[in-house]
């Protein structure tokens, strides 16, 4: 087993920035990530595009191009980077080192570390509309991922449905790349923009983000793409695969033929690792999701386990960069790293930058409020894709006395498939909260156990032999 001062899970903006800062301070650093290259979600395949497909940079936009600089500093930092490594277990004994266990190319590897930084980022909120399991339906982020990594786009006619900055950004990237969008089904409720107004003064600190947002909205509304407003009750229809989409909008009911439907209702922290470590979590009302409780240095309720970036609550890429730096400087301080001139001053500077970056969030949360209908589901909608459990099944389990997700899981097997509840966890919490008339925090979340990813027999056997 290899030992290092700081192990970082995730080579996105938060993880790369933390690695650079920790290396500058003289710490030994190992960064693991299941992607084939550094960059995280926002800067996926940045290095490949810059080298091989510079034409793609033009439509991916300036915020994407910006990633090249941090990726280069990360590559030169001297941190060990293990791409293609999926973490499936993390242990944190009360005293002593933490252990990270991962699968890499069919083998198992373990890393011991004094401090652990979880920079595993966000995932898109699952959007359990009827028919969302049909081939042809994917998320906006999924389509954006293959656009970045392979220059691929969904077959026409293409519909984008949902709400949030990522949807607007992807629409703008499509238009710039010449990819045709048949229509946008905007699910943002009426009046959301106005509800955002009280947050405007504070948000001015993050004015750059604001200007960008306005530009994106204007690009879309001037593009001539058909936009349906205040859309609800989206249904994906088809026999073997997606053929049509039905919905309600201000203009009344509508039905469109389509080959590709992309869903998006914002992003939420990926909860697996912090849940596995039994870190304390709080329900975030504005973003309707759980987030780990963090100190002002990014430490969780588990000593020497830190979280930086969107895994700790959604703040965006630049906030992730600052938070990663803060956590790394704090670890350096704690472990008596050699090079740390002005460690405290640096932390204060990074905290100010983080605060300015986060100032715009309340406005964004108010302008793109997370969907309320998910907690109200009670019909035949599949909510657990792995075990094909419906919303009605969850209601039935609640009526039979299941107080929380873990009992519902025992009744229904929801959350016991390969995704381990990533796709149904939030929905089950919301439905149970609604059924019992309780706060989601009282309802809680699935108890997550290892392995958090399917492990092959070969990989398990390799673990026995690990020294």
């Amino acid at each position: 087993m290899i030992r290092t001062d700081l192990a970082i899970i995730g080579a996105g903006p938060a993880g790369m920035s933390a690695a650079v800062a920790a290396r500058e301070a003289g710490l030994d650093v190992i960064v693991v990530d299941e992607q084939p290259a550094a960059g995280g979600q926002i800067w996926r395949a940045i290095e490949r595009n810059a080298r091989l497909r510079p034409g793609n940079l033009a439509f991916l936009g300036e915020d994407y191009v910006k990633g090249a600089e941090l990726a280069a500093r990360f590559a030169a930092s001297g941190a060990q980077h293990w791409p293609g490594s999926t973490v499936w277990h993390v242990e944190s004994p009360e005293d002593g080192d933490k252990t990270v266990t991962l699968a890499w190319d069919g083998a198992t590897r373990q890393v011991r570390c004094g401090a652990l930084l979880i920079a595993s980022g966000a995932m898109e909120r699952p959007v359990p509309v009827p028919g969302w399991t049909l081939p042809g339906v994917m998320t906006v982020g999924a389509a954006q991922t293959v656009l970045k990594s392979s220059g691929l786009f969904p077959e026409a006619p293409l519909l984008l449905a949902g709400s949030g900055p990522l949807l607007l950004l992807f629409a703008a990237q499509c238009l710039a790349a010449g990819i045709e969008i048949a229509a946008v089904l905007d699910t943002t409720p009426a009046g959301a923009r106005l509800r955002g107004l009280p947050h405007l003064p504070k948000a001015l600190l993050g004015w750059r983000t604001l200007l960008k947002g306005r530009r994106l909205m204007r690009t879309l509304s001037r593009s001539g793409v058909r936009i349906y407003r205040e859309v609800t009750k989206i249904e994906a229809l088809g026999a073997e695969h997606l053929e049509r989409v039905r919905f309600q909008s201000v203009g009344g009911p509508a039905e469109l033929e389509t080959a590709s439907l992309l869903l998006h209702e914002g992003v939420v922290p990926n909860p697996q690792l912090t849940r596995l470590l039994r870190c304390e979590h709080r329900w975030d009302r504005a973003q309707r999701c759980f987030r780990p409780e963090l100190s002002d240095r990014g430490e969780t309720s588990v000593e020497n386990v830190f979280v930086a970036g969107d895994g700790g609550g959604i703040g965006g890429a630049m906030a992730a960069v600052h938070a990663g730096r803060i956590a790394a400087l704090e670890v350096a301080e704690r472990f008596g790293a050699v090079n740390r001139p002005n460690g405290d001053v640096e932390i204060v500077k990074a905290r100010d930058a983080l605060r300015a970056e986060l100032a715009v969030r309340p406005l964004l949360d108010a302008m793109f409020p997370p969907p309320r209908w998910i907690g109200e589901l009670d019909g035949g909608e599949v909510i657990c894709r792995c075990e094909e459990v419906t919303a009605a099944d969850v209601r039935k389990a609640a009526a039979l006395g299941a107080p929380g997700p873990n009992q519902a899981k025992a009744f229904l097997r929801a959350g016991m498939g390969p995704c381990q509840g990533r796709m149904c966890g939030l929905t089950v919490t919301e439905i149970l909260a609604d059924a019992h008339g309780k706060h989601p925090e009282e309802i809680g979340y699935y108890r997550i156990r290892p392995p958090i990813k399917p492990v092959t027999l070969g990989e398990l056997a390799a673990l026995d032999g690990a020294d």
Partner: protein
Amino acid sequence: MLRRLPDQSGRKVRFRFEGEPVDALEGDSVAAALLAAGNRILRMTPKSGSGRAPYCMMGVCFECLVEIDGIPNRQACLTEVRGGMAVRRQRGAPGLPGEAGDDPD
């Protein structure tokens, strides 16, 4: 299914899906390459047998599980294509640890 923009340079890679040759570009994930080659369905669910396709493309939904070179439960969206790779649809549950790795309490 997916289409490719013009001017996407990269080395060609050929692998097999259900025994048939598939052409991809180096750097494609197996999931992206299969959708680009016109395959809509990558796996069948254990319970109802319904056909599924990649949903998240970032490793969280597990709808892209396939068998690669005889090893089941591989996430096609996290695996880059390699020349000569043999990929098959995953039909039902492969019954490996990891699936049953978590019992409720």
